[in-house]
């Protein structure tokens, strides 16, 4: 008989396979949540001045016109002085969120120089992203109120221009080199530390290599008209710089190329080309020239010339020093501070050249080297200072004024003319003008009376007849004189008569000699000895 094994009863409870379904669903849910979290981009805070054109859940963030994020929330900043836009940036664009990354709102803008963002009138405003060049991720940004003129990371060099006044240079204006646009003004502000207007300038590559420590920037906005001792000068830039303003840079004449500069270097912004050209040299020497004549028309910057060659400029008229000394010397000459730069005459721009000039000037004063005021422009009345040799000048030596060497002055040209005019006027003033005018008046009256009498005389009929008779007499006299001329018959007859008279006189002379030899020759036959025969023996 077969034994039937007793059944083994497993009393353990087992989890039903059916439960796998919710577990899988749970796992999927978890995975989806994690994936969603992992794939979600970061949220960045962007601070703007206003929320104009920015709407939560609607305003997109774009880079190169590709949507890379969206504004999720807009709220006021903690200090209530601006707004904060919470922007969700796509995960695949998070690498754009670096240092120097810039955000600005693209909306329709109408400015003096351009019109932009017209496309947003229909599609709505958006936030433009410009990735920076840094490597560290950043989540807080300050949005730009205006689009940057230069993309972040663009090759080139950033510079600062410092000016004493804002002038007509504005953000967006061009920076020109030899008339060609090589950069732009990116921004402007007032530096309250330096108390100067600061312009942010960007020079595009490869023109940034033109920048060195010797270049100078000047304002070329509008039309610059200046009147100086050199005459009237008009400076203009291109048409857009005339209308919109701009800046140019160049090496001053005679200046050597300087050393390279780092990004962010400061440069002075000169008012015009002429002021940019002033003092391009590093080495110079100051002299004082004292003038006793009027300095009207002599301005700082006026040239100092030696026989027409510019060798320096007038730095300033030392009026303050004169006023300080006025209680000591009434009517003292007015000192003028001039600067002579050896580099202007082709000498090396070195301290040795300065010493050479100093020595030359010191030696030349004893030989008549003097400074004089000359008229630079009759139109403007501008003056300049000329230095030259005047051998006839009184002997003088180098002086000193306020710690500076002083070159003696001499009056020539304008001053001398002025003196002569004054002298002439003084003499003219001494003339007995009143008596002379009285005599002239009497003479004129007499002359008038004479002319009136002559007029009456000439208008008299008898006088007119007399005149006709005189004309006839003159005509006859002319006829007579014509007959007496060498070509006339009377003259020829006269000449013939004179000839005959001479002949008669010769005969008479011969008769006289004959009678002297033989007094009875008139009644007795005359027998002279025969004349000797030429060629025969006498």
């Amino acid at each position, binding site marked *: 008989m077969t034994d039937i094994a007793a059944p083994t009863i497993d009393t353990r409870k087992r989890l039903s396979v059916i439960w796998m379904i919710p577990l899988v669903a749970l796992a999927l849910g978890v995975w989806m949540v994690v994936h969603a979290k992992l794939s979600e981009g970061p949220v960045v805070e962007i601070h703007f001045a206003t929320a104009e054109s920015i709407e939560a859940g609607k305003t997109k963030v774009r880079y190169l016109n590709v949507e890379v994020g969206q504004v999720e929330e807009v709220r006021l900043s903690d200090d209530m002085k601006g707004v904060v836009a919470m922007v969700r940036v796509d995960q695949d664009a998070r690498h754009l969120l670096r240092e120097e990354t810039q955000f600005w709102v693209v909306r329709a803008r109408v400015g003096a120089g351009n019109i932009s963002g017209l496309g947003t009138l229909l599609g709505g405003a958006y936030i433009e992203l410009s990735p920076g060049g840094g490597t560290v991720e950043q989540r807080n940004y300050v949005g730009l109120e205006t689009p940057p003129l230069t993309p972040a990371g663009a090759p080139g060099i950033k510079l600062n221009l410092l000016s004493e006044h804002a002038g007509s240079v504005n953000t967006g204006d061009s920076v020109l080199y030899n008339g060609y646009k090589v950069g732009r003004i990116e921004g402007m502000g007032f530096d309250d530390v330096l108390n100067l207007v600061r312009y942010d300038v960007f020079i595009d590559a490869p023109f940034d290599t033109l920048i060195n420590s010797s270049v100078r920037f000047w304002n070329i906005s509008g039309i610059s008209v200046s009147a100086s001792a050199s005459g009237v000068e008009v400076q203009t830039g291109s048409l857009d710089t005339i209308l919109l303003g701009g800046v140019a840079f160049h090496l001053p004449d005679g200046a050597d190329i300087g050393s390279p500069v780092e990004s962010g270097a400061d440069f002075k912004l000169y008012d015009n080309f002429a002021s940019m050209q002033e003092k391009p040299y590093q080495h110079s020497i100051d002299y004082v020239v004292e003038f006793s004549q009027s300095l009207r028309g002599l301005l700082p910057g006026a040239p100092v010339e030696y026989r027409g060659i510019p060798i320096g400029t007038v730095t300033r008229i030392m009026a303050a020093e004169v006023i300080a000394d006025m209680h000591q010397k009434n009517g003292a000459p007015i000192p003028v501070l001039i600067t002579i730069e050896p580099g202007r005459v082709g000498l090396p721009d070195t301290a040795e050249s300065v010493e050479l000039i100093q020595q030359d000037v010191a030696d030349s004063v004893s030989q008549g080297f003097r400074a004089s005021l000359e008229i630079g422009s009759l139109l403007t009345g501008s003056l300049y200072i000329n230095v030259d040799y005047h051998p006839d000048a009184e002997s003088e030596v180098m002086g000193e004024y306020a710690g500076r060497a002083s070159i003696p002055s001499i009056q020539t040209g304008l001053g001398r003319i002025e003196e002569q005019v004054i002298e002439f006027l003084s003499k003219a003033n001494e003339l007995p003008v009143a008596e002379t005018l009285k005599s002239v008046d009497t003479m004129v009256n007499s002359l008038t009376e004479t002319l009136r009498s002559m007029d009456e005389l000439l208008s008299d009929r008898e006088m007119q007849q007399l005149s006709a008779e005189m004309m006839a007499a003159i005509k006859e006299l002319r006829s007579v004189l014509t007959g007496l001329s060498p070509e006339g018959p009377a003259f020829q007859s006269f000449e013939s008569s004179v000839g005959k008279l*001479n002949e008669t006189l010769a005969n008479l002379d*011969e008769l006289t000699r004959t009678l002297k030899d033989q007094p009875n020759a008139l009644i007795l036959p005359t027998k002279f000895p025969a*004349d000797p025969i030429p060629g025969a023996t006498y």
Partner: protein
Amino acid sequence: MRTLLLFLIALASWLVSACSTTPQTRSTYLLRSESQHESGPLQVGNEYLGDVKVASYIDQSGLVLELADGVVHVAKQHHWAEPLRTSLRELLSVEIAAATGRSLGVPAKDGTRVEVKVSQLHGDADGNAVLIAQWSLSSTEMTQAYQFNQNLALEGTGYAALVAAERALLVQLARSIAAELK
């Protein structure tokens, strides 16, 4: 009365005999150029003849002979046909024109003035004709003076030979002047 009549007859006879005396012959000489010119127009030059002066001792009608040094004789029977100044001027004008090929012009400010002064013109005891003259050329720019001193032996004897020799000397003088004018 009879005595007076005889005196008158004698006087008349003497006078008639005087008139019957043969007068001495008198020769006159014309000093003229002998250059031959062709007929036709003559170019007028820029030069003109100014003063022609002659020394006083020859400025008379008789020809002059120098018998010894400083001793001159003025011929009584041999005379110039016209004043010597006139003859000299005429002869020099013609001969200068012949030598230069152009006629002397009239005085002008920018012209060249020719002046001649004849110091001696006579025959000497050696049978030569003598001519010594000074002449000059003057213009606005400059004045140049020249001297002419030549003797020429007479070809024969007599005053005609003397006149011929003096004419030849004057022609030489004219050619000297013309050479400087060219």
